[in-house]
């Protein structure tokens, strides 16, 4: 191959790679643009501060759904993140051959279970015994969805911490559990946080598992053992309703939901970038 041909092939392939990268982010940009176009007009102060108006009345907001979604996500994270991270650490650290293999396999299967099936599961183990739909049941369903994602990303990131760091700490006469807690996990922190964010973003938009667990609510939060509103549920309800005003609000809800995920991701990224970070 002459240098001239090689240069042209190089330019061509670099160009193709750049186009591919552009195509990958194009859907996100389109979604964002479309939501802004359709929903921005309905996003106002009332939307963030008011309850939904009764059928037939124009106006009102989704404040209850925004608060409800935040509560559901916080509860699900409180339940799913510690379990998932600890599980991931176990998968990465265990010297046993069979149990981690099985756990890893089952986590991957769980990751592939449709979210509506997880909703049915939460309905069976939480809603039926409690005899009511509740925020707790919704958060439980979301936590189950988060678990395999958090566990597998945590495992990968703990594995990425170089063995030399672990050895350096062990050779200093530091007990193994402390090496893990103070050296290995901090080195993997930035990546684990990213994994947690991915999981949170994923469940923030889940609708199906909330349908018969959190159920939805047209009023303010009334306790964790009561049905609770959630943005995806409200969007669903409003989108299939026959009123134009509700449709506009559904678009606005979708925009706010994406904004919420965006802000949470950004905040977590900033909170972990202050200190020296290890593996990303």
């Amino acid at each position: 191959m002459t240098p001239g041909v090689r240069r042209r092939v190089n330019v061509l392939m670099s160009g193709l790679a750049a186009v591919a990268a552009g195509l990958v982010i194009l859907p996100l940009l389109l979604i964002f643009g479309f939501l802004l176009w359709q929903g921005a007009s309905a996003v106002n102060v009332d939307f963030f501060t008011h309850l939904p108006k009764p059928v037939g009345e124009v106006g009102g907001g989704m404040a209850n759904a925004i608060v409800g979604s935040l509560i559901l996500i916080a509860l699900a994270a409180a339940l799913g993140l510690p379990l998932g991270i600890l599980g991931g650490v176990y998968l990465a650290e265990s010297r046993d051959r069979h149990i981690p293999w099985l756990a890893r396999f089952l986590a991957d299967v769980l990751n592939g279970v449709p979210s509506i099936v997880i909703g049915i599961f939460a309905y069976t183990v939480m809603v039926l015994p409690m005899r009511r739909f509740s925020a707790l049941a919704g958060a439980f369903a979301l936590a189950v969805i988060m678990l395999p994602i958090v566990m597998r990303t945590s495992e990968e990131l703990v594995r990425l911490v170089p063995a030399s760091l672990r050895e350096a700490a062990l050779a200093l006469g530091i007990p193994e559990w402390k090496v893990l807690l103070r050296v290995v996990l901090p080195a993997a922190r930035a990546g684990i946080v990213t994994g947690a964010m991915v999981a949170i973003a994923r469940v923030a938009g889940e609708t199906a598992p909330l349908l018969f667990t959190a159920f939805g609510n047209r009023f303010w939060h009334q306790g964790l053992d009561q049905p609770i509103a959630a943005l995806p549920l409200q969007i669903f309800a409003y989108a299939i309703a026959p009123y134009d005003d509700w449709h506009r609000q559904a678009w606005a809800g979708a925009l706010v939901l994406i904004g919420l995920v965006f802000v949470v991701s950004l905040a977590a990224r900033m909170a972990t970038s202050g200190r020296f970070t290890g593996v990303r």
Partner: protein
Amino acid sequence: MADGILVRGLNAWFGEHHVLHDIGISMAPKAVTALIGPSGCGKSTFIRCLNRMHEVVPGARVAGTVRVEGVDVYAPGVDPVQIRRKIGMVFQKPNPFPTMSVFENAVAGLRLSGVRERAVLHEAAERALRQAALWDEVKDSLTKSGTSLSGGQQQRLCIARALAVEPEVLLMDEPCSALDPIATAKIEELILELRSTLTIVIVTHNMQQAARVSEATGFFLLGELVEFGVTRQLFTNPRDKRTEDYITGRFG
């Protein structure tokens, strides 16, 4: 009682692979012992047996007796954590903790074993960094990341980290193999200074380095200790043909 390092009938395995055969050696206290030999001859494995780091690798096994400064390292009931606290180790590649500052790296051993008093930590950090001949270079950047230093500085930071817990023995596993000649010279100078206070064992591929820093040298080949003796004598008048072949560059 300072009696150096005494090894008898030491065998080590990685799974089924027998990597050390019946090693017997006795290293003088407060002196530098160098271990040379071609790659894969077992010298690194050997020093990792001295502070019970060999067993950290899954499937690794050890048999034999190791006495370090009067303590039977493999006696039943002996806690490897306590052994490692007495025996510092410096690795081939500088490995400061990336999430810690220079200061935190220097006193990592103390902080992670529960020392909290700032005055104690500051004193220990300065002492260790001075011992590692790094203090003057980093005293104004103690809060910077440990990994922001140059390679040679990082290695001296690792030496400081090992010294901060006041070990009786310092094991160095090819500490200069990733460093340039100037950084290497600094580490060698440091070894010569430290030998009055510590028992040092250094694994090296660099025979000139072994000749420069050590009083005694051992030659490993295929998992066996072929020859062990006074450094000058081993290099000028080796008893074993294989040692002679190696140091004259005929193989390895």
